[in-house]
């Protein structure tokens, strides 16, 4: 327990740490149901007018101010991450809306098989819950989030229609469809957390194509637009610029609240009957490890020793195809224009287990034609191959004339891949920073090589005259998963099937930390779904919860 002299505020029913997708959903549901909710967010409320997408300088700004890598962005509200022992750099954003402010908005819920990797493929662990149990909560989240898409894809059981129609696929999408059609492979118009028409605080998408750097139109679904207006109206309190350094517990081992540092540098205490962590798969593990006490000497909720362990990112490769015709491939959504699950399920004859989802993407403006999300990747390493006349030739060949295939593969959980506290590095408030220890495994390497070859096959079928591959991009840690894994056995997991920590009965986790396995899909849909389900459980069980 802390001995801090932090200034204390009134006790809330629920304290939430982090106003990203997971925390925002919990705040929405619990405030809507009449609970007093306080949310502490280390970043600030985004200013949509500051997003760079409509400025001529947008591509310059994405490489620094709006870069998803916190070590590059280096804002005071970002904490640094020590990555010298990691094959992948974690990406994130601190602010209301969370990392979704800079996400690509691909809406890809986990599929039925993702919850049963052990049973079906003999690897990792089964989740204690299944697809069907989450489905009603997923359908509710999709309505709130204004998801756009086309109902009927054959990659999951039937579910409710999307609340907004699919976004126009454009010339690029039609070219991709022709390629998939020729091969007889699965494709479907991409489902995106981008509204195509006005819906719940969102505008309709105008295909600006800068989704990954904040949507200047207000069409991309982030919770600052969709949920927080409702939550604030319902009485929820949102404290921005609040960096939590410890979750406190009482002598019975129940969470009593948090100590945080406000934007003036003052240490404060927020007390609560229930505490929910939603600080992402790096931040939540860091906070639990920071919250050491006599009762919890190895960090809070860590009797299993698994807090911070089983870190998963998703192995990521990209393929680029160049086409003769003008596809206007700077236009959005960015976003996935087309999605495919053709090679998602396990086929052991391929030499690896599990699979990957592909998203078909545009490739940006003249500075971005050799880049993915601001990181230069489609270049070789000599002055004359990238500069001089080669620059002009590359821009002529690629600007508006490319299709990018993004391959997101399943990452298997290993205890050696983990988040720990760094012994030297600290954030701007002097709090120890997280360190990532992560190595890509052989299954991921084989998975990516297989998918890269298939991606080239697809691009050539679509008519590409030139293709290139970036294998396992380092700046690809958008998905921070697994560091407080869900399970039934307290000795082998951190939270139970309701996202409640096994060790602390009034402490819940509602971010990607709880993922038992990663699936091969972008996780935000499932994070929000799990959070809504957990919040409903907390509301239903509020009288029975053992609180401080």
């Amino acid at each position, binding site marked *: 327990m802390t001995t801090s002299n932090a200034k204390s505020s009134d006790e809330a029913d629920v304290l939430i740490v982090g106003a990203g997708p997971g925390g925002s959903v919990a705040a929405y549901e619990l405030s809507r149901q009449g609970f007093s909710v306080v949310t502490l967010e280390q970043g600030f409320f985004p200013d949509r007018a500051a997003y760079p*997408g*409509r400025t*001529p*300088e947008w*591509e*310059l*700004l994405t*490489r*620094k101010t709006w870069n998803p890598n916190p070590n590059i962005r280096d804002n005071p509200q970002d904490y640094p991450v020590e990555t010298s022992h990691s094959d992948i750099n974690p990406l994130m954003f601190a602010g209301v809306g969370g990392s979704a402010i800079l996400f690509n908005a691909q809406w890809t819920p986990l*599929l*039925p*098989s993702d*919850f049963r990797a052990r*049973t*079906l493929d003999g690897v990792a662990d089964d989740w204690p819950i299944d*697809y*069907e149990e989450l489905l009603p909560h997923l359908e509710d989240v999709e309505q709130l989030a204004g998801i756009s898409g*086309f*109902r*009927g894809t*054959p*990659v*999951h*059981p*039937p579910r409710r229609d999307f609340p907004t*129609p699919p976004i*126009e*696929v454009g010339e690029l999408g*039609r070219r991709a*469809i022709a390629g*998939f059609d020729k091969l007889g492979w*699965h*494709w*479907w*118009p991409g489902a995106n957390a981008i509204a*195509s*028409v006005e819906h719940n605080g969102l505008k*309709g998408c105008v*295909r*600006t*194509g800068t989704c990954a750097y904040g949507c200047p*139109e207000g069409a991309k679904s982030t919770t600052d637009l969709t949920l927080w207006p409702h939550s604030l109206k319902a009485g929820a309190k949102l404290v921005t610029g609040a960096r939590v350094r410890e979750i406190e517990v009482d002598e019975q081992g129940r969470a009593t609240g948090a100590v945080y540092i406000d934007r003036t540098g003052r240490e404060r205490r927020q007390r609560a009957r229930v505490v929910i962590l939603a600080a992402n798969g790096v931040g939540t593990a860091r906070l639990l490890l920071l919250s050491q006490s006599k009762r919890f000497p190895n960090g809070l909720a860590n009797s299993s020793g698994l807090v911070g362990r089983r870190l998963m990112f998703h192995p990521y490769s990209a393929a680029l195809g160049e086409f003769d015709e003008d596809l206007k491939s*700077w*236009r959005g959504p960015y976003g996935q224009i087309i999605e495919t*699950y053709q090679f*998602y*399920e*396990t086929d052991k004859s391929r030499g690896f287990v599990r699979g990957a989802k592909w998203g078909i993407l545009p490739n940006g*403006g*003249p*500075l971005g034609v050799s880049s993915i999300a601001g990181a230069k990747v489609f270049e070789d390493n000599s*002055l004359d191959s990238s*500069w*001089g*006349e080669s*620059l*002009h030739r590359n*821009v*002529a060949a690629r600007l*508006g004339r490319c299709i990018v295939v993004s391959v997101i593969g399943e990452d298997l959980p290993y205890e050696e891949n983990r988040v720990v506290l760094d012994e030297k590095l600290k954030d701007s408030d002097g709090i120890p920073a997280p360190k990532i220890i992560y190595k890509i495994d052989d299954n991921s390497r084989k998975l990516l090589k297989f998918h890269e070859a298939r991606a080239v096959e697809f691009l050539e079928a679509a008519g590409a005259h030139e293709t290139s591959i970036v294998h396992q991009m380092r700046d690809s840690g958008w998905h921070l998963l697994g560091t407080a894994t869900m399970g039934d056995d307290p000795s082998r997991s951190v939270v139970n099937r309701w996202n409640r920590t096994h060790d602390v009965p009034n402490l819940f986790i509602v971010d990607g930390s709880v993922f038992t396995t990663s699936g091969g899909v972008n996780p935000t849909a499932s994070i929000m779904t799990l959070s809504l389900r957990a919040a409903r459980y907390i509301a239903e069980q509020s009288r029975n919860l053992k609180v401080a």
Partner: protein
Amino acid sequence: MTVAPAKSITAELRRHFAAIADVLVPEYGRLPKASDVGVADELLDRVLAARPDLTEIFVRGLQTTLGRSGREAAEHLFKQDPEAFDAVSTAAAGGYYLDPKVRELIGYPGQESIPNETPYALPSYALDGSLQRVFDRGPIYKPTPGKAMIAHPRLIGSKA
């Protein structure tokens, strides 16, 4: 957009940068070379206003190569000081592609806003049968063990 000239960039450094920039972005067909559109002038100030973090490294790269030709300086930075090369090349290309004439010549209108006037109209892929072909091949997922695989009953827009 008008920005104040970056004070730390002297006229000598601007001339040196122009020479390097012309190596990185030379004249090519109808496209002008970098200095012809002013990458060392107002465009440089705009780039550094957007990326003030580059200024110090950019100046270092120029100062350490003063006296060399543009080609020699570019080669030196590329091989010996990648961080400075990145700053100098970002300033060159970043400024060049801000120029409206260059954008017109390469056919880039900037990021557009294209409202969809008929968002509920059935897309071409739903009308031409291509999506139907995917749908008709049936479900491709593995169901939860113990549960049956279920297909959607019909496709929106389908004649079936």
